[in-house]
């Protein structure tokens, strides 16, 4: 008998444009059934968790099971507001790109809980090492909307002085580290920052995000190695939104395992969490934060979610996935689910929701208008001298001479 011929396997998603969208291959367990280990639990005792899916909100909006973080209604409403603000802001700024007011924009649609919940769960002084699509972290902490729009318009009042693309913020006072367009390259900074906090016997921890696609970068594995070796007080989060531009998560390895399970080889706890469930995201963050603050080291969390919009203003997702795929996502929408829960527990109403939506719409509109008065992309920009500032702490002769050459 001849041995079989070798075959090269190239993963392909379940549906392409024109085909019927389906997530039937995903096993979505019911909410509330995953156990919540004690904070002191050894990693070896929880190696089942990376393959489970921690969910708190059930289909009816009840908070169920041991991971229910028992948040008070004010906290929940703050979360809802941050997520709704993020979405209202996204809609408005995406539209602004269509109108030529900015060079670029990225929405977080469907992923608003992943930035907002940790932002509200962690302390002032902790540091977030963001990816794009976690602007809800800033919205949850009240970052001034006008400054944000000024950055996106790259205008005269851009807080980053026109040196960085739209949405690649830096906001130290809001615990938001400088974001950049290289995916993954700040994951290890979070670990180093956390090591420094431990070195100084401080009480601050770091939280970093990386996309599931970027887990294939060496940075991810280097960061996990360092986090494990030095028990760095940090929370390392993989936002698995199923799509890295046009590549489905199978291209990043999702056919064979979960992203949370990457933790196993490093001896770190790995949690796989419903990323569209504000309560579950909060609970997992709190659990990992408590471990980090008590010298139990890092936790890897996979936030299982869905990128309900295109990658960016430069992307058209209907070219590579069914146009209606988002509607089939089995874990729903984070805003709708938290709203449902708040109404169910008698802490929110449709009227309040509508009023808040109107208020946020107005708030965003006013902020955009104020920024427009300063100027939109290409109509206004920071003083060109800013181009030469901040290269080094003190400029060297190259900067001085070249500025003179440009006659400024």
């Amino acid at each position, binding site marked *: 008998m001849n041995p079989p011929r070798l075959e090269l396997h190239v993963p392909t998603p379940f549906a392409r444009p024109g085909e019927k969208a389906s997530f039937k291959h995903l096993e979505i367990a019911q909410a509330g059934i995953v156990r919540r280990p004690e904070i002191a639990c050894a990693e070896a005792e929880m190696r089942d968790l990376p393959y489970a899916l921690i969910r708190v909100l059930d289909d009816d909006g009840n908070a169920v099971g041991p991971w229910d973080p028992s948040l008070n209604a004010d906290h929940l409403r703050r979360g809802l507001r941050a997520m709704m603000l993020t979405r209202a802001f996204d809609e408005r700024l995406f539209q602004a790109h269509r109108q030529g007011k900015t060079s670029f924009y990225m929405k977080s649609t469907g992923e608003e809980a992943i930035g907002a919940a940790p932002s509200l769960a962690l302390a002032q002084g902790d*540091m977030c090492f963001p990816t794009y699509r976690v602007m809800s972290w800033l919205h949850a902490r009240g970052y001034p909307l006008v400054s944000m729009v000024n950055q996106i318009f790259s205008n005269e009042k851009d*807080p*980053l*002085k026109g*040196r*960085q693309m739209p949405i*690649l913020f*830096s*906001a*130290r006072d809001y615990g938001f*580290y*400088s974001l*950049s367009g*290289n995916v993954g*390259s*700040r*994951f*290890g*900074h*979070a*670990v*180093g*920052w*956390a*090591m*420094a*906090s431990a*070195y*100084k016997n401080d009480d601050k921890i*770091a939280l970093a995000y990386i996309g599931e696609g970027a887990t294939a970068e*060496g*940075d991810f594995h*280097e*960061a996990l*190695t*360092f986090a494990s*070796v030095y028990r760095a007080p940090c929370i390392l989060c993989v936002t698995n939104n199923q799509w890295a531009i046009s590549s489905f998560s199978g291209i990043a390895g999702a056919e064979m395992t979960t992203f949370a399970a990457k933790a196993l080889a490093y001896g770190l706890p790995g949690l796989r969490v419903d990323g569209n469930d504000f309560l579950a995201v909060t609970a997992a963050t709190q659990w990992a934060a408590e471990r980090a603050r008590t010298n139990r080291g890092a936790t890897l969390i996979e936030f299982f979610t869905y990128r309900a919009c295109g990658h960016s203003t430069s992307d058209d997702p209907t070219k590579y996935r069914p146009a209606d795929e988002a509607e089939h996502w089995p874990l729903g929408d984070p805003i709708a689910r938290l709203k449902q829960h708040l109404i169910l527990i008698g802490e929110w109403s449709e009227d309040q929701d509508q009023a808040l939506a109107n208020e946020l719409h107005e708030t965003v509109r006013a902020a955009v208008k104020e920024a427009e008065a300063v100027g939109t992309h290409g109509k206004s920009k920071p003083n060109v001298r800013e181009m030469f500032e*901040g*290269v*080094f*702490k003190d400029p*060297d*002769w190259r900067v001085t001479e070249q500025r003179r050459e440009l006659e400024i």
Partner: protein
Amino acid sequence: MAMMNMIQALNNALDEKLAQDPDVLTFGEDVGYFGGVFRVTDKLQEKHGLTRCFDTPISEGGIIAAAIGMGAYGLRPVAEIQFADYILPAFDQLVSEAARLRYRSNGEFWSPITVRSPYGGGIFGGQTHSQSPEAIFAHITGLKTVIPSNPYDAKGLLIAAIEDDDPVIVLEPKRIYNGPFDGRHDQALKTWAGHPKAEVPAGLYRIPLGQAEIVRAGREVTVLAYGTMVHVALAGIEEAEVDAELIDLRSIVPLDVDTIVASVRKTGRCVILHEASRFGGFGGELSALVQERCFDHLKAPVDRVAGWDTPYPHAFEWDYFPGPARLVKALRRVMEY
């Protein structure tokens, strides 16, 4: 005053900074208990404690990423990359992160890190223990690159690098760690003993980054060099019997262009010497600067002596390494032009 070789001088700089500033710490592959493969961190763990001088995984990207994160927190980390040949896995961290953090965040975050790395040839290290990658760092806006040529400078430059608020790469010419080497490989090894630059004072002192040193004053030709090549240059100048002015750049970024220009305007000739391969090497930038700023004073074309444009070849170490004989030829070329 103590006589030290370069290893001892670098060790002494680290020792004194660790003692003086609790925010300084150092780490790298084999750096901790063992004290580094070249012994630069010898006994620092024993003296200053486990968390201040420690071993890292074999992960250059991870080492620099951790250093950048520590710097953003407020520490002054000194990372060792065991050989400069192994720095490339960390290249993205240096280029895309350390070099740009201050600029892109409008000064909210910066990267006060020092990256030490033994570099250069002359030790039969083949392709993976001999390279001189300074030009690729010099090209990256936002990085500083420092290359000492003797024990006294090594201490003063390393202290200045650690205290600098921007990322500094300190390339340590490993061939001259234990003694000056003039490229005459068939002669007996020299140690630093008795060399005036091996007298290293105790206590913190700084050599400002961007300040070249005129090692030898002269009137006929300017020779630009750094690292091991400073010693090769001295030998070549002596052999050629020309009245050359030798400038040790000490740091290539920031570059002391004023000292270079003043010298070439005086001598009217310039020869550039470096170990790294010639095409796209830092000598190209130096040559362009001299041409742009000293054209009317030049009596001969700027000449470059450098490693050949091949990978660093193991068995051909001395055919590749730009020794004094090649400098002599270049000096004669510019003098006879």
